[in-house]
């Protein structure tokens, strides 16, 4: 099961790459994403057994994140049916098959991240998501996208290299002292296994000289994966990459791959928790989370580019996820729930941003006006999206952000709570003024009717609608299976 989940997109990518026919590559893309989602949904009912000495196994947190990835990939691939037809920029007759192949490889690598239980392979998988998605950002083949691709590659590769050092440190920390007996008698010699379940058994008995290495390892892993997750001040690649990538790729980068990097941090956090170092890790998570919120708030308020606005909003929400886990207790539940809501909402907004960009040919908030008159469906969804992304009722984000705040208040951490509230308010003002400017007012005259018709193509409207329905439902009612899953996940990370 796990093997087929990971191999299916790889096989599909190879097929697409060699067949090179436009019509075929789209068929393969959509059918792969449908099969992938079906397999993922089946895994909810029937847990798939671990394979390869337990290196690959889908636990609840992996399954939760994998489901997000799979849903977003399906909507993105439906969107691509409408998107790839109308390439707005001259693409020098390049076929889309390489693009579709990379998209499928991106899915394969993200699936691998969610299924990986072995720390070094997890590193390989996370770095592989960077490599598979770099060509996707360069889709438009112009100076801007090239610059964004370069920054993405260099910043993420370098920082993820530090995470590799973190992995080595982790392996040192669990290796036993020479001549000193360690916990399990069978693992006396040298280095232990880097599989999560083994680590969790081993770390509780570490001595202080080993704890130093474990802590250092967490810092390195946090910096490495935190960069990929977009936590400030390591987020500098994110606004460029997310704004220059084609919109369907931005939706995957923001909604799916940031979560994958977060999963890397969560695994390291799990190990720290087992070694009674949760407090140390939580301090780091909360401080970087708050810092990200602050950074995002400053850049959102003065933002003039609506895709960059969405990118900074991702920095903000990643900050919230980090704070939630850092607070512990109900906060972890809130954080996991928020991850689901944020991914769905942000993916929807990026897809809509693609529609706006197509009609207006600009990402500037000054130029994109009167969307209600030009692209009514897109504008309506965009308007609802403002509520969803700002955490206003009746959307799921309201519930998760409210829970997060409540946890902070309950724990008596008034400073954290006040800071979250303040920054969320600032972000809301910035987002609202930008979003309203876009949908309201008179439309610019030069917008052609033909363009606006093709921007409201069925394939370009259905995916955002599919994404907003669940967040709307979650705001009113959390289905029991999801609630149960979130609680199980929260318990893994010291939550309720």
């Amino acid at each position, binding site marked *: 099961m796990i093997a087929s989940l990971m191999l299916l997109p790889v096989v599909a990518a190879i097929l697409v790459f060699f067949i090179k026919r436009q019509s075929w590559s789209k068929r393969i893309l959509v059918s792969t994403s449908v099969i992938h989602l079906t397999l993922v949904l089946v895994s909810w009912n029937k847990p798939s057994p671990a394979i390869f000495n337990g290196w690959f196994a889908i636990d609840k947190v992996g399954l939760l994140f994998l489901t997000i990835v799979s849903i977003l990939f399906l909507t993105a691939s439906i969107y691509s049916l409408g998107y790839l037809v109308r390439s707005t920029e001259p693409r020098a007759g390049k076929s889309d098959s390489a693009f579709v192949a990379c998209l499928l490889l991106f899915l394969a690598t993200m699936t691998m991240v969610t299924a990986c239980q072995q720390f070094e392979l997890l590193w390989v998988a996370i770095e592989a998501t960077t490599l598979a998605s770099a060509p996707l950002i360069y889709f438009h083949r112009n100076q801007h996208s090239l610059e964004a691709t*370069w920054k993405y590659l260099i910043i993420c590769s370098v920082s993820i*290299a530090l995470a590799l050092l973190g992995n080595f440190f982790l392996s040192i920390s669990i290796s036993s002292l020479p001549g000193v007996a360690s916990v399990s008698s069978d693992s006396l010699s040298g*280095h232990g296994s880097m599989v999560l379940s083994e680590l969790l058994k081993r770390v509780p008995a570490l001595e202080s000289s080993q704890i130093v290495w474990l802590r250092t390892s967490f810092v390195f892993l946090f910096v490495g994966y935190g960069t990929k997750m977009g936590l400030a001040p390591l987020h500098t690649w994110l606004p460029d990459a997310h704004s220059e990538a084609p919109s369907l790729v931005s939706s995957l980068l923001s909604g799916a791959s940031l979560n994958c990097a977060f999963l890397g941090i969560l695994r390291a956090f799990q190990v720290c928790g087992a070694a009674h170092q949760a407090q140390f890790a939580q301090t780091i998570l909360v401080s970087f989370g708050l810092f990200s919120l602050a950074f995002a708030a400053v850049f959102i308020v003065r933002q003039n580019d609506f895709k960059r606005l969405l990118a900074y909003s991702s920095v903000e929400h990643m900050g919230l996820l980090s704070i939630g886990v850092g607070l512990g207790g109900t906060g972890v539940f809130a954080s996991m729930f928020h991850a689901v809501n944020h991914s769905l909402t942000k993916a929807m907004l990026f897809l809509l941003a693609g529609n706006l960009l197509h009609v207006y040919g600009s990402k500037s908030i000054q130029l994109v006006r009167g969307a209600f008159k030009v692209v009514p469906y897109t504008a309506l969804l965009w308007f609802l999206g403002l509520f969803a992304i700002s955490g206003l009722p009746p959307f799921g984000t309201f519930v998760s952000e409210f829970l997060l705040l409540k946890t902070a208040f309950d724990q008596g951490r008034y400073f954290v709570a006040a800071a979250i509230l303040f920054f969320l308010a600032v972000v809301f003002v910035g987002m609202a003024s930008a979003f309203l400017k876009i949908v309201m007012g008179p439309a610019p005259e030069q917008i052609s009717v033909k363009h606006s018709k093709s921007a409201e193509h069925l394939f370009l409207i259905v995916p955002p609608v599919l994404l907003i329905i669940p967040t709307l439902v979650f705001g009113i009612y959390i289905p029991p299976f999801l609630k149960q899953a979130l609680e199980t996940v929260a318990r893994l990370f010291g939550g309720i």
Partner: protein
Amino acid sequence: MVSVNEGLLVGLVLTNLFYLATGRLGTYVKLFIVQTLLVSFFGLVVNQGYLSTRVIILSVIGLVIKAFVFPALLTKSIRTAKLKREIQPLVGFGTSLFIGILMFGLSSWLGSRMPMPVEASSRLVVPVVFFTVFTGLFLIISRSKAITEVISYLVLENGIYLFGISFVKEAPMLAELGVLLDVTVAIFVMGIVIRHLRTEFESLDVNKLSTLKDWGV
């Protein structure tokens, strides 16, 4: 064999200082070859007690890729780009060297703060690893050519590899091959992007990559 070990480590420190002091791209590539050879040889010396097939296979593959394939690629792109040296590094070479010495001091201090729970072949390993990693990071920040950034990334990678090969003796082969594969693919993708950079920007100066920023500052 302690002396051989430490000789190799001192060699690594010297190559790092040399990186900081030079501006010639050709020299960077040569230094990278020397450094890779030193690291690989160090790996063999350290593991000589138990030279398993795993160690040998990994060293050979790593050596071929890093000491032959990467330098060839880098030399080719330096030649086609008609570049010779870093013309305007953000930090001058003298200052870089001075910072390098400070970084070495910091690395030694860190090494003394973090005693190895396992038996180390030499007390110098951890400081040298940190120093190599810091050198790589500093070069990335302070140099301005795209090719130099790639080489700096490889320097950083060499530092990490040195740590891995000295201590992580029982890491599964598959994981290490995965790491090697990732680095290789990364270099290839970077190489492709560099080729596009040359045609789009007619330059490999990353300081020109500044069209994307906020508020138009």
